[in-house]
Every structure is written in C-alpha cells, then in structure tokens.
C-alpha cells in the first residue's frame, strides 16, 4: 500500500517535471526572440511644446510613430515628418496615428522650439523635449543614436537615427520605418500597426 502510494507520488513528480520541461522548451525560443524587440520603447515622461510634462501613457489607445530629430535640421527632419503626415492621411486621416517628434538637441530645443516646429506640418504632431538626462534616457530606451558635429562657423549639426519607431496602440514596438523604403512598404507596415 505505501509502496503503491510512493509510486503514484513519483509518477506525479515525473509528470510535473515533464510538463515543466515541455513548457520551458516551448517558451524559451519565443521569449528570447521577443526580448530584443520587446525592450525597445517603454514608458517615459518628457516635456511637451506647452512646457507641461508629457506622459507616454497619453499615446496609448492608437498607434504612434516616434522620430528623433532636432529643430535646426532643415531637411531630413521636416522631410520625415511631412512623409509621416502624408502616410497617416493615406492610412485613414490625422486621427489614425500619433506622430511624435523627440528632440536629440535639448540644449537648443526648449518646449517653445519643439512646439513651433511641430506646428509646421498643418496636422497634429507632438513635439517633445526634456533635460539632457531625460533625453539620454529615452534615447537609450529606443536604442536611438545622436551625436553633435561641429560645423564651420561655430554652430553644430546633429547626426541622428534616421528611422522612425512604430509602436502599436499599447505602446509595444512593432517595426521601424526607414527613409529609403518606398511608401508602399511603409503603408503596409502602418496598416499592420493599426490592426
């Protein structure tokens, strides 16, 4: 009787171990492939164009396209933001997605600068800045790069990540949008984002 009981207990233990093993085997590959992508983004608090704190939770509820740039950037940054506005209209209108511009030049870009820059596109664009520390933290969260480069004449330009980060309505990173890819691919990505 005790022998049989022990046997049952042992079998149950074997069963649990096997089940655990199967679960581990099933989970580990998917979780490891997800972590690299899942770590991009995350909650942040920066400063809006109105000078008030902006909590990234406000972006939840619809997809967001997040772009790192600077307001002294006369070409690539407005070109990228104008393209996003155009793609968003094709996607279904100005309400279909948030477009977020985060400065990588907090030294020159205060709330007033990012606010007026975001207003250049005749469509809603959220301009964000923060302290140098805040910006560094958010850059790190997104794996975004920037570096100041001296220009002749004493001023400087900023090299920065050219891609846009696409987040779903829950703030999860989905894909990047690069300036080289055509509007067709970009629009497909955005459509997938909106699902």
């Amino acid at each position, binding site marked *: 009787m005790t022998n049989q009981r022990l046997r049952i207990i042992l079998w149950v233990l074997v069963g649990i171990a096997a089940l655990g093993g199967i679960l581990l085997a099933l989970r580990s590959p998917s979780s490891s492939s997800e972590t690299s992508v899942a770590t991009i983004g995350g909650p942040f608090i920066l400063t809006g164009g109105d000078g008030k704190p902006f909590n990234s939770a406000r972006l939840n509820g619809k997809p967001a396209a997040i772009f790192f740039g600077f307001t002294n950037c*006369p*070409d690539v940054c407005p070109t990228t933001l104008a393209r996003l506005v155009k793609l968003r209209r094709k996607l279904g209108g100005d309400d279909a997605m948030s477009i977020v511009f985060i400065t990588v030049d907090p030294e020159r870009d205060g709330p007033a600068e990012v606010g007026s820059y975001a207003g250049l596109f005749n469509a809603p664009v959220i301009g964000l800045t923060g302290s140098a520390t805040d910006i560094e933290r958010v850059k790190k969260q997104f794996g975004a790069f920037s570096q100041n480069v001296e220009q002749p004449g004493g001023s400087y330009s900023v090299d920065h*990540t050219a891609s846009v980060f696409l987040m779903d309505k829950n703030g999860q990173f989905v894909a990047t949008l690069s300036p080289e890819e055509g509007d067709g691919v970009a629009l497909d990505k955005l459509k997938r984002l909106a699902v």
Partner: protein
Amino acid sequence: MLRRLTILSLLLLASCGGQGNSEIAVSDAWARPTKGQAPGAVYLTIENKGGDADRLTGAFTDHAAMAMVHQNEVVNGIAKMRMAGEINVPAYDKIEMTPGGTHIMLEGLRAPLKTGDDFDLVLKFRSSKDQTVKVTVRKPDDQ
C-alpha cells in the same frame, strides 16, 4: 577674301564664346516654411545646357546670415548633414536638389519663411556667371 576671313573669324569667335558663357539655367527654386529661429532649406534645379562641366561654388542671399550647400546621407541608419563643398554640374546634365538629399541651408534667417513669400538667391559658379534666382516659399508638392 576679306569677307571670307571676317566670316571665319566671326564663326571662331562664336564657338569660343560658348565656353564660359552662361550655359547654366536655374529653375524651380523653393523653400519650406520655417518657424522661430530654425534654419531653412532651399531646393532647386540646375541645368547645364553647355558642353563643358561647371561647378556650383556657393550661394548667397540677403535673406539669411549664411547660405551653405549641404548634402545629406544616411550611413548605417544614421542621418548625417555635411557641407557639400563644390557641386559638379556635368555637361548636358542637370542637378535636381530634392528633400532628403542636397539642399542649400539658410542659417540666421532675417525672418521665418512663410508660405507665399519669395526672395532672391545668388548662385556662384566656377565658369558661368552668377545666377540670381527667385525662391518661393511653399510646401513640398506631395504634402
């Protein structure tokens, strides 16, 4: 005989005149609107109708403290903006400056650029004479 010589020399003069003469045509010059202290970017098309290559050596305007020819490139996913130096304009060819590539950056604008405004920009070339072009402030075509 004399008449023949005159015609010949005139023909020779005419063919010489082609070189260094203005074979450059600048068109479709426009700039995006700007706000605040932000710099502007001018895009334009330079056409070389002559048989000799020329080089754009600089740009000047009274509308901004500085006008610089800039080139953008994306290297390993990083957007970089650099002074372009001189821009080669090959014979019978044209250079089209479009958003995301080459542009003339205006730093220290006297006033922000507003849609509908226009201002003069002078382009300097190595061989051809200066070209003054009217830059119109407008949104890009597809926006």
